[in-house]
């Protein structure tokens, strides 16, 4: 028949254009390979290096708990912040961790809506990273209030004290922005996990994993109707989370921008913060995923194409951040506001923290420029090192914004110098312990790559896949 003969010789659209798209999964891996490889991470014993990383991380987490107990039992005076620098490392670290959390939603929501298929190998881990980072972030403002047991005052609950929240304050918007973000991210992440949890349930051989994966899989049977509802729910959640990518860090930037302190009071803050957050978030995703990829043999799923794309996003957002840095300086000069000019003069030339500014500028603006070169984006060591420069630089960005500004207020009589106390340093190390510990536990117990979604972007999932006969023949030969 004419119909069948044309179907056999039909050219795949990507080839018709003359440019073969790089496949998202290399080596023509079948679906079963993906299932085995990803589930294997959970089902098999962890490599020795997992323990080498987990034990110190858990110890640092213990240290975090210790410092928190010390803090609560003694009082926030154990931190180094005081007048004039009332926001020390606590808020620096809060903004740092919240910023890191942004890549997860960007990858899972915005790249989903824009149909970037490469997101499928990255989104699960990035979302997990988001949740963990937001948890780490939440610790700081929670304890920064001084009396941790009074933290419920942040919520507008009717109470016998007639305390009502100041809805004009961006600090309160922050509470809502961050808690909404966490809630939506958890739901989104969990909904995405359900089909994979069902896979793990079906493969489980022991009673407890069977029960737990089965419990959380909510009776998923991969039926047609279930998939239809599921995909609609996922799409709606993606649409709901998309504005959050922009809103959360905008609101965090309002904490600074709506004040009248020179150095904070700028309209460029929201877009600059959002770009910075995505920048830092992608760097952290790469920092985590490059070792994971190597350790668990996921090179065929998390390919050079993914790393290349993410490096390009880092280059783009890093350049936006650089533009913002330079624009801040330009406006402080061009705006001719004396205090503004002084604030930036102190920040970059004569203040006590100029070293931090140049540290930040090099890490965030200069270092990522190497990603203009393809060889750099394809050299994993270069990518890893630049990603860590960015992690470092983004922390310094927040440090530059907060203590630098507060230490040099309007009146020279109020000037001061801030340096963190030992408790603050140990606590920051402790949140890193918590971050890595929870991420390692995530790798240990949950599928690190969204299996069902990766399978959906395989060429053989395309109902019009032209070469399926060829592929089947190739597999048969390979098997025999």
């Amino acid at each position, binding site marked *: 028949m004419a119909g069948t003969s044309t179907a056999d010789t039909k050219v795949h659209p990507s080839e018709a254009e003359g440019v073969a798209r790089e496949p998202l999964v290399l080596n023509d891996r079948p679906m079963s390979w993906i299932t085995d490889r990803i589930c294997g991470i959970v089902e098999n014993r962890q490599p020795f290096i997992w323990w080498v990383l987990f034990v110190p991380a858990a110890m640092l987490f213990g240290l975090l708990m210790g410092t928190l107990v010390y803090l609560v039992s003694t009082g926030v005076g154990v931190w180094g912040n005081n007048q004039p620098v009332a926001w020390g490392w606590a808020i620096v670290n809060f903004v740092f961790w919240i910023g890191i959390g942004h890549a997860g939603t960007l990858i899972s929501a915005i790249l989903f809506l824009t149909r970037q298929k490469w997101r499928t190998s990255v989104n699960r881990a990035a979302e997990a990273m988001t949740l963990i980072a937001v948890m780490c972030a939440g610790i700081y403002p929670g304890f920064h209030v001084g009396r941790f047991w009074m933290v419920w005052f942040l919520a507008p609950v009717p*109470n*016998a*004290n*007639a*305390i009502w929240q100041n809805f004009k304050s961006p600090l309160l918007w922050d509470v809502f922005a961050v808690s909404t973000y966490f809630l939506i991210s958890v739901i989104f992440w969990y909904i995405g996990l359900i089909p994979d949890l069902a896979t793990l349930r079906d493969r*489980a*051989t*022991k*009673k407890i994993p*069977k*029960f737990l994966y*089965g419990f959380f899989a*909510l*009776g998923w049977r991969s039926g047609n109707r279930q998939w239809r509802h599921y995909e609609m729910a996922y799409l709606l959640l993606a649409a709901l989370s998309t504005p959050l990518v922009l809103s959360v860090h905008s609101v965090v930037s309002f904490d600074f921008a709506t004040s009248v302190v020179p150095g904070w009071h700028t309209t460029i803050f929201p877009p600059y913060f959002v770009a910075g957050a995505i920048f830092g978030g992608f760097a952290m995703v790469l920092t985590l995923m490059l070792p994971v990829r190597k350790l668990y043999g996921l090179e065929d799923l998390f390919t050079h194409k993914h790393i290349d794309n993410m490096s390009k996003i880092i280059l783009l957002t890093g350049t936006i951040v650089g533009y913002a840095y330079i624009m801040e300086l330009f406006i402080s000069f061009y705006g001719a506001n004396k205090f503004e000019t002084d604030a930036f003069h102190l920040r970059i030339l004569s203040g006590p923290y100029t070293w931090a500014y140049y540290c930040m500028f090099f890490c965030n603006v200069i270092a990522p420029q190497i990603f203009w070169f393809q060889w750099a984006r394809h050299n994993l060591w270069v990518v890893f090192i630049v990603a860590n420069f960015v992690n470092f630089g983004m922390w310094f960005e927040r440090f530059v914004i907060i203590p630098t500004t507060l230490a040099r207020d309007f009146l020279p009589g109020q000037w001061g110098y801030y340096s963190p106390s030992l408790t603050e340093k140990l606590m920051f190390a402790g949140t890193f312990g918590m971050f890595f510990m929870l991420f390692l536990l995530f790798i240990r117990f949950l599928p690190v790559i969204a299996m069902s979604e990766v399978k959906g972007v395989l060429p053989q999932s395309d109902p019009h896949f032209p070469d399926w006969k060829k592929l089947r023949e190739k597999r048969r030969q390979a098997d025999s």
Partner: protein
Amino acid sequence: MGNIFPRWTNLLAIKVLLCAGALGTCVVAVAWYSWTPKYTRVGYMPQQPIPFDHSLHAGQLGMDCRYCHSFVENSPHSNVPTAQVCWNCHGPGKVKSDSPKLEPLRKAMDENYEGYTGEPIEWVQIHKVPDYAYFNHSVHVNRGVSCVECHGKVNEMPVVYHAKSLSMSWCLDCHRNPESALRPLDQITNLDWTPDDLDPDEFYAYVAGKTGENAEDLKKGDEGKEWGQELIGAHLQMAWDVHPPQDCAACHR
């Protein structure tokens, strides 16, 4: 390994969620009622070392509060009377001086009494504001807030108890609407006072004298308004320029 979840588990999640919701509502309802000062403080009636009867002294005998709580007008802290004050009336040969109920007083004051120690009577504090809240008695009493507003009708209490909640929202109720509690200064310790005890003409004359307005104009302006606490309080607030602070630092310094 086969499916370990039997069919009835399909609805289990919904049932558990419903129960959790009901339980949560109960917890909130119970906490709302029983964790507030309205429940935890009001009605507190400890036994005192001497069963001093306020309804007898301040009620039937008509003693002024300030006879015993003598510094209330001058001091942030309203004092509990020393044993010397009791001794004024209950000393040797005076009122009921050998009543066994007054034994702690004799221990404190009577040098000839066999159990004499000279130690003060250990009254049990009933109304206690937390250390982080600064309450100034004299400021309130000198600006027309009667004892009864916070302590209830002590002149009718045989045993004094905690009558009002003294919660922060309760303080703020009055700080936001001071007219609800202001009365003429000479009636502060008259716990049975009502607005009807006040002569309107005298009152308007007093207010007019304070504000420099015309008493008749004031009276005309109030035509059609109900004579009562709100009206009197509003005029007194104007006359005395009362602006109760509502910022945190007013009480939490």
